[in-house]
């Protein structure tokens, strides 16, 4: 291709061009408006960066990279390029850097991108812990420090935990329900390509005048309406991450509702599918609220609205109500998919059906409903209407009940199982124990009198890391190791995986355990410096953080080297029953040669003659009426000689 052809074909050249054009367009609008009104200066760089760099340039990049090509042709009445499936599959590493509509490619794009931001956010955490290792100022000044914890949290939440679950689900869900792809593959690609824009924007805030946004990931007004330009990189970045999240969730909902294979009733869906179904409900309902809260901030900052200016009749607490109406459900957005992963891993590695399958699904639904009624527990000391506190304390404590159902059901699944302690299972067990601790500190925080003392202290920092690291992060690792053979077609190194688990488990507890005590003793969160009496445990925590950082090196080495040269993975290394394991590793481009027929539940381990689904040409062998809860007479095939016979690759 000539350079000119490249410049007009979808791809990185055109994306660069689109970014430049977008920025110029935004700059032009600002300059034009300012000169028409006769405002001085005409070149107002804050406005130019907001309109040009933060809004128009990312849209130009999305158009340039090719997310909208098909729709533009269709909308303009031009002949669309017939879908020849050239957008499916990846044949070299370059294909992962193009707009691709294959859910498996998009899943891997998500996972690799989000892990990049995980590493970036992790390095920021280590720099913070370096600064906090001793009292006083050693490495960074307070402004930089406030930027570090703000960008750290924003990247970890919006660019890592939420989207990495979307990535894992993107890869696994269509396979699990027996579908060839997601319902809207082009929307799926658009969702993915919005993410790097959001992440790069948040990272670039360090280059803004006045430094990175430094108001925490919560960005409470009116502090966030007064701080320098860097804040807008967060305000707008969240819009792109949020739009990505909403579009993906809609896609999951439609996919799960409409594209299940014949026989895959809701009560035969694996629990990961249930988990992503309920998560997507949360995302679709809640995410518009954070988008709204950040738009209010943006408008207060840029065009002089007074939403949060009490002197002009604004209401400061409104920000917190709207923000937490999303951000508390967001905690479950970051946890329910992990619950799904743990159910898959535990059932497979304990060789037993999930104990209380229906209650596991009902408890997810209960969490979705209750999750919307607890947001104000973040505001017990905020000065909100005081009667609201007690109902929110009660609902917050009640949400421990469905969560407890899940913990007890997993434990009961372990009981009398045949436990295979491979790396995913170790992370699952680590999750159950550490998440219990996070839940316990959650109950303590829910008790208002204790919360009045502990709110905004390191106790909260400890709690959220036990929930998001000991909880979500452990499930992410469990999921990555569990589906690694399926995604890459290679086995990871089991010894390095175990080393990674134990280093993570120890480093995690050393880092975050002492924070409980620090908070109760009186150390507030989000401080660049602290009283000398907290020095010893802060040093311990910092040492733990660096150990944790080393554990991640083991993971990255294992991940990369095994992908390059690990032993070939069989189709079903875990002898699992769900559909994604019944095809080759990695799966064929369109997943299944023929849509499978589901005939039973997904976890029928130990049930003689049970089968979850019948693939490829065996359909006529399915007994008539074989849709009882997984006790169907099975076709006489023998997959892996595991004693129960009845499924095949």
């Amino acid at each position: 291709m000539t350079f000119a052809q490249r410049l007009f074909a979808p791809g990185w050249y055109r994306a660069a061009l689109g970014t430049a054009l977008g920025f110029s367009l935004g700059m032009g609008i600002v300059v034009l408006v300012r000169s028409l009104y006769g405002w001085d200066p005409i070149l107002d760089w804050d406005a130019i960066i907001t309109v040009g760099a933060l809004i128009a340039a990312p849209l130009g990049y999305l158009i340039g990279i090719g997310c909208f090509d098909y729709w533009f042709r269709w909308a303009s009445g031009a002949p669309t390029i017939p879908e020849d499936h050239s957008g499916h599959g990846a044949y070299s590493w370059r294909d992962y850097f193009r707009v691709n509509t294959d859910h498996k490619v998009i899943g891997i794009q998500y996972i690799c991108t989000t892990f990049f931001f995980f590493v970036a956010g992790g390095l920021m955490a280590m720099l913070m812990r370096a600064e906090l290792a001793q009292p006083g100022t050693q490495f960074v000044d307070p402004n930089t420090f406030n930027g570090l914890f703000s960008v750290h949290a924003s990247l970890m939440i919006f660019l890592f935990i939420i989207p990495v679950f979307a990535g894992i689900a993107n890869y696994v869900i269509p396979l699990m329900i027996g579908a060839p792809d997601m319902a809207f593959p082009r929307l799926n690609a658009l969702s993915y390509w919005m993410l790097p824009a959001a992440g790069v924007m948040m990272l670039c805030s360090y280059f803004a005048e006045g430094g990175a946004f430094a108001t925490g990931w919560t960005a409470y007004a009116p502090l966030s309406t007064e701080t320098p330009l860097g804040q807008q990189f967060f305000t707008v970045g969240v819009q792109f991450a949020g739009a990505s999240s909403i579009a993906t969730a809609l896609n999951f909902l439609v996919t799960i509702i409409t594209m299940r294979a014949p026989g895959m009733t809701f009560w035969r869906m694996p629990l990961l599918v249930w988990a992503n179904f309920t998560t997507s409900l949360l995302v679709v309902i809640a995410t518009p609220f954070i988008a709204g809260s950040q738009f209010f901030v943006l408008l207060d900052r840029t065009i002089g609205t007074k939403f949060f200016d009490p002197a002009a009749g604004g209401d400061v607490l409104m920000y917190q109500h709207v923000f937490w109406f999303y951000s508390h459900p967001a905690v479950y957005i970051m946890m329910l998919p992990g619950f799904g992963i743990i159910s898959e891993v535990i059932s497979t590695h304990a060789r037993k059906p999930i104990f209380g399958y229906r209650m596991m699904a009902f408890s997810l639904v209960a969490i979705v409903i209750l999750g919307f009624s607890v947001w104000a527990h973040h505001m017990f000391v905020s000065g909100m209407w005081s009667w609201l506190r007690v109902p929110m304390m009660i609902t917050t404590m009640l949400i421990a009940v469905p969560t407890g159902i899940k913990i007890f059901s997993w434990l009961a699944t372990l009981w009398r199982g045949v436990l295979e302690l491979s790396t995913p299972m170790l992370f699952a067990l680590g999750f159950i124990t550490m998440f219990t601790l996070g839940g316990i500190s959650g109950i303590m925080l829910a008790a208002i009198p204790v919360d009045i003392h502990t709110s905004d202290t390191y106790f909260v920092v400890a709690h959220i890391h036990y929930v998001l690291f000991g909880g979500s992060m452990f499930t992410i690792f469990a999921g990555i190791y569990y589906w690694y053979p399926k995604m890459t077609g290679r086995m990871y190194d089991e010894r390095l995986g175990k080393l990674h688990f134990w280093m993570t488990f120890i480093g995690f507890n050393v880092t975050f355990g002492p924070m409980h005590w620090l908070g109760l003793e009186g150390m507030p969160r989000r401080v660049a410096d602290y009283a000398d009496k907290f020095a010893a445990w802060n040093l311990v925590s910092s040492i733990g953080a660096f150990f944790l950082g080393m554990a991640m090196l083991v993971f990255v080495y294992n991940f990369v080297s095994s992908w390059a040269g690990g032993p070939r993975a069989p189709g079903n290394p875990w002898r699992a029953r769900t559909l994604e394991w019944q095809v080759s590793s990695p799966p064929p481009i369109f997943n299944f040669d023929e849509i499978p027929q589901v005939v039973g539940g997904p976890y029928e381990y130990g049930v003689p003659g049970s089968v979850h689904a019948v693939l490829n040409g065996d359909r006529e062998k399915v007994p008539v009426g074989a849709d009882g809860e997984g006790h169907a007479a099975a076709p006489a095939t023998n997959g892996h000689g595991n004693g129960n016979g009845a499924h095949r690759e």
Partner: protein
Amino acid sequence: MDDRERVQTDEAKGPPEEDPRIAGQKHPVARMIAIGMVASVVGIAITLLIDWFPEPASKSASDIDTLYDVLLICSVPVFVLVMTIAIYSVVRFRAKPGDMGDGPPIHGNAKLEVFWVTVPFIMVTVLAIYGWYELDNIEAKQKNEMVVNVTGQQFTWTFEYPEEKVQAKELVLPVNRPIEFKIHSKDVIHSFWVPQFRLKSDAVPGLTTRIRLTPDREGDYEVVCAELCGLGHSTMRQFVHVVPASEFQTWLSDQKKAAGGGGGGGGGGGGGGAAAPNGGDLFASFGCGGCHTLAAAGATAKVGPDLGKLGDKATADFIRESIADPNADITKGYKPDIMPKDFGDRLDKEELDALVKYLLESQE
């Protein structure tokens, strides 16, 4: 409650003697219960021995500590239950090399599931009621309350005793006298917190928030800002002095005398006490070091210009103007509108003079 829970949980998990891996043991569940109970007792003892809190200094503090202890006592057995079953399963039910079999196909147990919905439900309901009861206790109106107005601003607190018409930059409280704090903010959200009192409340612009408490131990405790309020957030610390009633009266009358001359004059006037204001202390208490470098004060922040290197601008007039109107002269490479514009109002004349003098003396 938790021990009972454990008993039934384990009993309901199927008759253990069917499983050859636990058939050799006479009472595997009983043994787990015994281990679990011992571990719970030891765990509770250890967690109660840990000194979690700073010394309590208010009447509510000991109630809150008790609630926390009750939560610990309920939590430890839950954690022990989870750990015991997890560890027991790992040890007892781990696959032997080459064992490709499956576990028994147990799909659930309705009784057991009802049980572990009900018991936690009752537990958290009881805890919520207890929490509610304590909350009402803490916040109950007391007789003979003294009102203290607390005002947060970047990055300092000021205090006012409206009945005595006294304003101060330090908080002095008589021991055993109920206090009602009315908390305000002049700019962004702050949070008024004294860890030894165990109580905090946000200071919200446009709202008045309240805390009631009775200090019951004499001493000096830190007033900490607990809500991120900007660059100087970690420096926003002052002291509360809890003193005998007589000493408090003496302090009040000293404050009145000091303010008397001014006749309730402008700004943050009145505070400062008998001693002349010290520029170095002001530099620290107004959080200047949150943004500026000043070698003499050990401040190293780089948001604003280095105040130790003003060069030929180091004149009293220039410094005075820059504090009162930060946008009047912006050093190259820095931006307007970052520094708060109200320092001119917040510092009284003596303080401003002291601060200007201190900065002049601190030039390198």
